[in-house]
Structures are given as structure tokens and as C-alpha cells.
């Protein structure tokens, strides 16, 4: 069976269509979405309607939550004052154009999804705002997967896809406690994996193409997919709709529009 996982569409309808086409070509049996359907991009309503029409199970992203709650994104994600201002503009624009039923839909999205030994979250199991970057300490990464009880943890939020395998994890512990004798504890874990599904609508890997992942359960193989599409259409729509034109320039170069995942040790308190 093939499971397609996508994330961070960010109102980019052109990109979503191209990815769905690609998923079709690869004959995936199931599709999951890790949230951030809206924000930054010019067609948030169309994206959500498409996801609903296809009944794609989706968990709630940080932007989805922010639009529902009327909050602004955690300021620790903005690397500069300039980025923060641009993010706010994007938030205000999205807030204005979102249809009420779309907002309601985003509000009822679960924080995580589960399918057998697979778990799906937006940021991390603990927090929609936590970035699970590739450089995160291996044991911290292990803790994240183990916390879900799954074998493979699918996440998004960073907008750069990767597959990380953590194998043969083991720890040796000695515990001393007043009133009890010293004891030794051994911990071990089998193969665990973290898969970041990248971003459909706001790629940050230096190219404008959409990214998502396919997991083949029979072959136990994970493939990172990069899909070309007519991103100029999205660029035109960004400008036509009154979003900051610099977003179009940055999309064409696969650069973040505003937020950036920087510090692998930072754990967002929000």
C-alpha cells in the first residue's frame, strides 16, 4: 500500500493541484495532510475546499490555529523585524478573505492523526510550533517518535523534506534513590523514523517546486517527491490579490516568505 503525505500548502492552489496529479500518477492508496492549509498564499479558500472535497484526513497546522484563534504566529519563528511585518501582513490578508465555513473547518481539525504504526503531526507531537529540524540531537528526535508510540512520525512545519532513520537506540542508566538499593536500567528501541513531508506551497529548499513524500508500506520505502508546476501563476495571483509582491519573488527562488526554522534547540513555549 502507498501512503502519500503532504504538508504546508499555504493557499497555493496551483501547487496543490500539481501534487494531487503526481499522487494520482503514483497510484497512492491513501493521502494524509499535515496542516497549514492557509497563510501566505493567494487561494486559501480554494485549497481548503479541495481538501474537503477529496476528504483528505488533515491535522491542524500552526497557521490554521492562528487563523481560527485570531493570533499571530509565534514571534520566535521570525528571523527579523522585516519578516515579522511581512508575516503579519499575510496573516491579516488571510484573515480577511477566509470564508466562515472554512474557518470552522480549520477549527475542528485534530492535532494529530494515527494509522496503525504511523503518526501524523504538523510540528512535533508536543507542539504545533516546534521545528523538528534535521540537526536536532538524535536522542531528542528519538524521544519525539517514541512519545507517539508509532514507528514512523510524519511531520511538516520546516518546509524542507527529509527522512531520518534512528536505529539500535540504547541507553544504560544507574539509579540511586534514598531508601532503595541502586539499580541498573537498560533501554533499547527498534528502528524508528522521522519523515518531514516538506511543503507543497511555500518551499524553502532553494527551488520553487512543491515537495511531498510517499511511503510504500510493502517495500517499507520512503520516497521524497519534488513536483514542478507553473509557479508563475501563483506569483501573478500573489501580486494581483494584494499580497506583498516580494512573496512572488521569494517563491520563485524557493526562499521562505517570512518565517524561518533556525534554531534546532529552541522549543517554542506557545
Amino acid at each position, binding site marked *: 500500500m502507498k501512503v502519500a503525505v503532504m504538508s504546508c500548502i499555504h493557499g497555493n492552489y496551483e501547487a496543490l493541484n500539481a501534487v494531487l496529479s503526481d499522487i494520482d500518477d503514483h497510484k497512492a492508496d491513501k493521502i494524509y495532510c499535515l496542516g497549514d492549509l492557509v497563510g501566505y498564499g493567494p487561494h486559501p479558500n480554494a485549497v481548503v475546499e479541495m481538501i474537503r472535497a477529496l476528504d483528505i484526513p488533515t491535522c491542524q497546522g500552526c497557521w490554521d490555529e492562528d487563523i481560527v484563534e485570531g493570533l499571530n504566529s509565534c514571534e520566535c519563528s521570525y528571523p527579523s523585524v522585516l519578516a515579522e511585518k511581512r508575516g503579519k501582513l499575510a496573516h491579516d490578508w488571510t484573515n480577511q478573505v477566509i470564508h466562515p465555513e472554512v474557518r470552522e473547518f480549520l477549527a475542528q481539525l485534530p492535532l494529530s492523526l494515527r494509522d496503525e504504526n504511523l503518526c501524523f503531526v504538523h510540528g512535533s507531537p*508536543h507542539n504545533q510550533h516546534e521545528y523538528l529540524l534535521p540537526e536536532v540531537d*538524535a536522542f531528542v528526535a*528519538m*524521544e519525539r517518535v517514541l*512519545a507517539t508510540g508509532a514507528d514512523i512520525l510524519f511531520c511538516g512545519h520546516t518546509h524542507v523534506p527529509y527522512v531520518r*532513520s534512528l536505529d539500535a537506540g540504547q*541507553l544504560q542508566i544507574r539509579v540511586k534513590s*534514598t531508601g532503595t538499593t541502586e539499580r541498573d536500567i537498560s533501554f533499547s528501541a527498534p528502528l524508528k523514523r522521522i519523515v518531514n513531508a516538506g511543503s507543497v506551497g511555500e518551499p524553502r529548499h532553494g527551488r520553487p517546486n512543491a515537495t511531498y513524500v510517499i511511503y510504500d508500506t510493502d517495500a517499507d520505502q520512503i520516497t521524497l517527491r519534488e513536483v514542478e508546476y507553473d509557479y508563475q501563476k501563483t506569483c501573478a495571483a500573489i501580486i494581483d490579490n494584494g499580497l506583498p509582491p516580494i512573496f512572488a519573488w521569494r517563491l520563485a527562488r524557493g526562499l521562505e516568505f517570512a518565517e524561518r526554522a533556525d534554531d534546532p534547540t529552541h522549543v517554542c513555549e506557545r
Partner: protein
Amino acid sequence: MNDWAILSGIEGNLAAYEAVLADIKRLRQPVEELYILGDVIAPTVESEQVIQRVRSPQQNEPVPQVCQGWWEEQLLILHGLGRTGEPTELIERYGIEMVKTLWDAIPREMVEWVRSLDFGLFELDCLLIHGSSVSVSDELTPDTPAIQMLDRLMRMDANTLFCGRSGLTFQYEIQQGTVTSSMTTLDRSTSPQAIAVKPRQVVGVGNVGRLPGQASYALYHPNSNQVEFRTVRYGAGKGFQPASP
């Protein structure tokens, strides 16, 4: 470098705190630093006196460095200064009447001091905190899964995490460990690398005031990285005599 004394959970028990201070003064090795990991207060009127005593160390006592505990956080929430809006945890654990009890017990003037306390302290390579950097309520015990203990240490890249939420004295040493990590991105793959954990530990520093007549706390020798636990008995009728130095 001289020793550290690390306490938690005075919980408004002035006699217990005095007993610990007296014990510290009797130690052979001088104690240079005194850390108090939260729960200085409890919902009792006596807490005010404890706060005064903590803020007024005598000449021959180290100046305490204090961080916020669970009770302090609940108090701040009641006054609209906490990290969350509603005292849900307080009500869940102690019932709705506790809201008024806590509010009445601690005068407003003390709230500013509570507010000024750090969430946690970081000295040398040690994190000193009430619960963990996740929250004040994060209760670490010898039964906490190993990988979780390691995560709490790694979040702050601390070699030692001193905590007090559980009230237990324990030393949880992660002596060694490995995991094999490999990574694939769009443009490249790295081959599997064995990553080793360096030795780290979580130390529960006990509790000073909850158990009447008996206080426990921890001593840390930074030079040798040794941890020692002390139990102090106090109170009338216990025949308590200062031990000979």
C-alpha cells in the same frame, strides 16, 4: 569551587527551612551557593514569613538564588500574571476552594517578588529548575522513561538537571548510550553514523517542608561532580543535637 546546597519545596514551613540552614552551617565543607527550586510557598499564611526569611539571609549564610515552583506559578495565574489564563490545574488537584485559600494566604506585596523569580537557573553545566524546562508541572522521577529524562537534559544541553517537583531524592545517571542515525534529503544522503550520548544525570533534590520534622536536600560538589543527599530532623522532642563537625 565550593559546594552548592540545593533545596526545593519549603512549602511555607519556616522551622524546616531554619533546620536546613543550620545543617548547612555545620557542614565541614563551606557551601558557597544556595539554590531554592521553587515551592517556597504553600497556601498557608506562614508562607509570608518564609519569603521574608529567604529574602533576608544572615551574615554567615549564602544568599539564596530562587526560581519559580508549582505553587508560585499557581499564585501568578490567580493574579493574571501566569503563563496560562485559568487555574485549571490548581482546581483539578485541590478543588475550587483552594483558589480562595491561596489568594488569601499570600499578600499582594509578595506577588511582585514571586513574579521577579526566574523560571529556571543555569550554572556551569547544570540546569536548576522546579519541574523541567517543559513546565513547572513536569514531574521527573526514577520511573520516568529514560528517553524522556534525556530529552529534558538535551533541551537545555545540561549535563545535570536538578529538580524538585517530585519531592524525592534520587540520582538518575545516564551513563552511556548510542543510536545510529542516517539522513536523506532531496539532494543527498548521509550514511549511518553512530551517535553516542555523553554521561548526564537528573537529580531529585528532595523536599524541605512537606514532611513535618524531616527535611531533605542535596549537596553538589562541582569539582568532583558528586551528589550527596542530606536528611535533617528537627522539631521539639526529637532529641536533636548538632552533630560534631
